[in-house]
């Protein structure tokens, strides 16, 4: 068994409004001198530490946890899972 750090990023699906991201873009970034920025999306990240036999098993376990316990709401959100060696 090895230890892995797993980052779970929960973000709105395309088409679901993200007023916080829009405010950061329009009222902060674009009001500065950063006119090349065209989009900001907010997201929530959960950082798991988990012991599994390999990266694949760690990813699979975390996906199962996210689905079973509704860590994200599939109607409006997606999760992206990134696995790193601890």
């Amino acid at each position, binding site marked *: 068994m090895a230890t892995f750090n797993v980052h779970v990023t929960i973000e709105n699906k395309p088409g679901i*409004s993200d*007023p916080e991201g829009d405010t950061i873009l329009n009222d902060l970034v674009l009001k500065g001198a950063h006119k090349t920025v065209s989009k900001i999306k907010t997201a929530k990240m959960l950082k798991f530490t988990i012991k599994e036999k390999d990266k694949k098993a760690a990813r699979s376990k975390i996906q199962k946890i996210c689905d079973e316990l*509704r860590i994200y*709401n599939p*109607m409006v959100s997606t999760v992206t899972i990134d696995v790193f060696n601890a």
Partner: protein
Amino acid sequence: MKVGVVVFPGSNCDRDMYHVLTDVFNFDAQYYWHEKSLPKNIDAVILPGGFSYGDRLRAGVIAAHSPIIKDVQKMAEKGIPILGVCNGFQILVESGLLPGVLLKNESLNFMCKWTNLIVENNKTPFTNQFKLHAKIPIPIANGEGRYFVDDDTLKQLKKKNQIVFRYTQVVNGSSNRIAGVCNEEGNVVGMMPHPERAVESEINPVDNKPSSLIFESLLVKMGVTN
């Protein structure tokens, strides 16, 4: 006529609800801690408002995994009237008893204000005393109150008459101005506004009678009055 008021860690409208049920409408109400089970002879269940688990992760999602929810699900299947108010609505949605999701208000603000509802379904245990399209002046108090469903689900809600309450005007950006919905069978109802804060004339500056009909509907459903 036993009504169970479920209490989660962080519920804060449970006592208001209990007061209204017992002192205003003479229900035999009882609190049930979320780790306990519900008795089999209960006639209705109410999930009150508040901030269960401090809204951590997402409003209602952690409470949706509380042991008592399995009993609430069983009672929902039996057709027993179940009402979720505010955080109670969020918990019903997150437990899969009602469709949709409650997102942060479009303004990102916690909104505490009086709104007006329109009754869109007067067949539920909590709306059977209303005329269709009756208006209800009622307060909201929430940060994650923007009801959202995708287009396909919205079509299904309309088709199956599951939209129970809509705001008269845009309040928080909710889909189709929805403020409350029910399950397909109609016995499980969730609503963001707080009827328990609107049924007494002392604290309702507009008109306390419409909100009272929500509880009077339940009395009628339970065969207490006509």
